[in-house]
């Protein structure tokens, strides 16, 4: 058996959040409160305030959900591959995954919006007439632009799902078996039962091991990882379809689940890098986590940035190339076009994503030196978190209208949801060690070197 010089975390390394946790928790709650007040106040002055508030809420919820699901994915994949290097960086991902319980609570406003059946947020949730009216109001502007005598392409797209109210109704009716409030709510109960259960179980097993050091816990976690990942893949796909794709119930894309997954993976890796930089700055795990761990997280981040770009390109290019009105409408709403009449406020966000969520971080993270120098790595991680939010904003908010809406409502709601989410995460983090301190593969992670 291989012997390692060091088999435990140095006693000088702070492993517990301790009294700092309380202050951090309070700060998160304060941010949440301030955000909530700002969001409510902001939406009072906004047009069509309920829809705007709720769509902003869906965006913020999709953001925190992607962190948790990304965390669950990270934990599962490490166990599935029996990874050794990642033991020291696994705990925060476990905490994000365990936080899925709180995320389920954060889902309640969306569940409520669907249950009362207004159809303002999810057009399929309301009675047919209501949904069509809301949709038509949202589309008033492009229709006018069309009347101004602009490009024929707009007309072609119009003839597809969007403008034609008769076909609209008829097609929605065909999907009723899937897109209806009771089944939607039932599915989300199922998703959260699975996600929350898995997240809690992995966090619980891993923290139990802190006390017992029982290697059989690792064996159990590794055994479950395969089936869990299978279920995860299915549920994140349908979760993404339900939460984001069905905002425009006519549009469909088989890659959509993968798209949301790719964004989640980028988000959680970026979040882990930021979290560790913060923890180490505050004096936690100062010696155990080394540049080598950052380097590996950076490599994975780089890989998933590329993966996101690949998936996003595949989706856009294939729909653009075939140019079938059934599927181009969604990109038209988002201004992803060169047709002058269809360029709207979201065009610039879309371009920003191409450059800011793919080209720049790809070039920026390419070098080994960037990934091994904490300030530059943390910069790109923070940058990518912002971009991930913009990506979700671009998926959701164009359903509100063609103007770019990123104001006090969106930012306030984000602060509110993310503040509560982080408060939950801090609460969980305070309960146990910040790293799996008696994992049987810990010595490998402590001695880990890339070069």
């Amino acid at each position, binding site marked *: 058996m291989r*012997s390692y010089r*060091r088999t435990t975390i140095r006693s000088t390394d702070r492993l517990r959040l301790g009294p700092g946790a309380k202050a951090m928790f309070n700060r998160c709650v304060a941010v949440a409160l301030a955000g909530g007040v700002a969001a409510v106040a902001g939406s009072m002055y906004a047009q069509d305030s309920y829809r705007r508030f709720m769509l902003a809420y869906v965006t913020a919820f999709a953001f925190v959900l992607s962190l948790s699901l990304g965390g669950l994915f990270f934990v599962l994949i490490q166990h599935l591959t029996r990874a050794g290097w990642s033991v020291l960086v696994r705990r925060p991902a476990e905490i994000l995954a365990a936080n899925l319980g709180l995320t389920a609570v954060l889902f309640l406003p969306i569940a409520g919006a669907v249950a009362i059946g207004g159809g303002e947020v999810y057009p399929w949730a309301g009675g047919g007439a209501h949904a069509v009216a809301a949709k038509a109001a949202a589309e008033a502007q492009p229709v006018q632009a069309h009347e101004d005598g602009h490009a024929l392409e707009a007309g072609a797209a119009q003839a597809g799902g969007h403008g034609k109210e008769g076909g609209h109704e008829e097609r929605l009716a065909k999907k009723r078996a899937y897109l209806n409030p009771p089944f939607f709510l039932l599915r989300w109960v199922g998703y959260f039962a699975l996600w929350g259960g898995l997240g809690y179980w992995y966090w619980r097993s891993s923290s139990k091991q802190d006390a017992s050091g029982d290697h059989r816990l*690792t064996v159990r976690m590794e055994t479950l990882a395969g089936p869990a990942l299978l279920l995860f893949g299915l549920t994140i796909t349908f979760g993404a379809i339900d939460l984001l794709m069905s905002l425009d119930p006519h549009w469909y894309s088989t*890659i959509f689940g993968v798209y949301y997954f790719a964004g989640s993976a980028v988000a959680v890796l970026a979040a882990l890098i930021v979290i560790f930089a913060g923890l180490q700055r505050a004096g936690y795990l100062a010696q155990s986590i080394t540049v080598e761990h950052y380097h590996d997280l950076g*490599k994975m981040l780089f890989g998933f940035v590329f993966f996101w770009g690949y998936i996003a390109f595949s989706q856009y290019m*294939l729909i653009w190339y075939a140019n079938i009105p*059934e599927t181009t409408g969604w990109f038209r709403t988002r201004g992803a076009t060169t047709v002058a009449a269809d360029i709207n406020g979201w065009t610039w966000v879309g371009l920003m994503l191409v450059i800011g969520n793919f080209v720049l971080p790809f070039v920026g993270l390419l070098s080994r030196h960037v990934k091994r120098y904490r300030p530059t790595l943390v910069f790109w991680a923070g940058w990518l978190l912002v971009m991930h939010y913009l990506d979700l904003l671009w998926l959701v908010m164009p359903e509100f209208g063609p103007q770019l809406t990123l104001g006090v409502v969106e930012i306030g709601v984000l602060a509110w949801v993310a503040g509560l989410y982080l408060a939950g995460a801090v609460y969980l983090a305070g309960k146990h060690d910040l790293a799996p301190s008696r994992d049987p593969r810990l010595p490998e992670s402590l001695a880990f070197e890339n070069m």
Partner: protein
Amino acid sequence: MTSMTEKSAGLSARVHVKVDNTSDDPRQREELILGDNNFSTITDRVTDLAFRRTPLAWYVAFAISLSLLGLLGVCVIYLLTTGVGVWGNNVPVAWAFDIVNFVFWVGIGHAGTLISAILFLFRQNWRTSINRFAEAMTIFAVMCAGLFPALHVGRPWLAYWLFPIPNQMAMWPQARSPLLWDVFAVSTYATVSMLFWYVGMIPDLATLRDRAKGRVAQVVYGLFALGWNGSSRCWHRFERAYLLLAALATPLVLSVHSVVSFDFAVAQLPGWHTTVFPPYFVAGAVFGGFAMVLTLAVPARQWFGLKEIITMRHLENMCKIMLGTGLIVAYAYGIEFFTAWYSGEHYEQFAFLNRATGPYAWAYGVMVFCNVCAPQLLWFKKCRTNIWVILFCAMCVNVGMWFERFVIIVTSLHRDFVPGSWGMYMPTWVDLGMLAGSFGLFFTLFLLFCRFLPMVAMAEVKTVMPAAHATHGPDRYDYQPDPDPVPPTLPKSH
């Protein structure tokens, strides 16, 4: 044949210190190389394959492969002298066996690149035992693949028109066509794979050069060893080049089959136009590629006495990758069906219903059984460590992945929007002959490789053996359990 099996059985009986290295006990990493092997026994075992008397089994296999290659030759000559009309494809099924075989063979190649590039970046050290012949397989598979589109253009002697070569007729290829992207994607892939394979082989070629007895062998191996002398400068440059090539080859694993999927997905044809095609094709390619690696690895380790180098753990790991990628493929089948229903579009729904229940339902059934049902056996460790079950699953996937391409291409084409233009497709004897013949080409090249080149990457295998890390001290992170961290004969200060 019998003497061969007895001999290898005798070989493995000689040194079995430890047989089972498939344990997943988190307290201890398993050894990757079994038996009482050291650096020199590894070299002996691998170079012996190239130098000792050729076994009879090899000649038998070679004769079969060569006859199939002959069949390919006959078919190609008949095709060229008569025209592509000798194939069964015609409107409405204008693409059939030619493109099916092309996609099938390109896909096979992906496992090699994944093993050599991606698993290298992921520090999966078990790859060292299998990467060499998986890479060889890649290159031969790409050669088989290239054959079909080249013949499908009808006049292969004008195939250079596919490249944008300035010419007085001002005739340029259509840059908007994914078929042209294929030309670049596949040729880049072939070039980088070849380079990667060759660069990785240089130290081993030098070993063969040094051990060769005959003058011809010495000169030929020497020529290709590029003057390798094993100095640390050689090794330094080698490691650098290998890392860079791995990084360059990694996007190619994604790009080639993505571009192949674009051939279909950019079209407006229901069943072809679906956005999940690129990642789904990549997963399918890796899936099919690992099935082929297993198909080759299981007999090869048996016949060439490599059971201690390609151990059960290697086979088990490959099975796991096959299961994982197979599940991604199953996911894609499922999501395509769901989305076809969800879209509410009549033609989308019909295309998928027709696949599952139309006249080609049998092909769809074969595909689902082979790709979705059979690999589920691999969830169980008992199955992953039984070579007969492994071979069964691998064979199923080989067949299933061929049928997958058949289902996608033929069933989508044979019934499109207008029932008046529907039709059926039947392959001719030339179609079947060329499919069989492509296997002949593949196995002929592969057998030649097994006979004359180092089948296992000796230099790389040695790096994952405990002895390679003897002087690093206990704080060095390695993948190998180290029974004897600091042998007394070596200086401690490293």
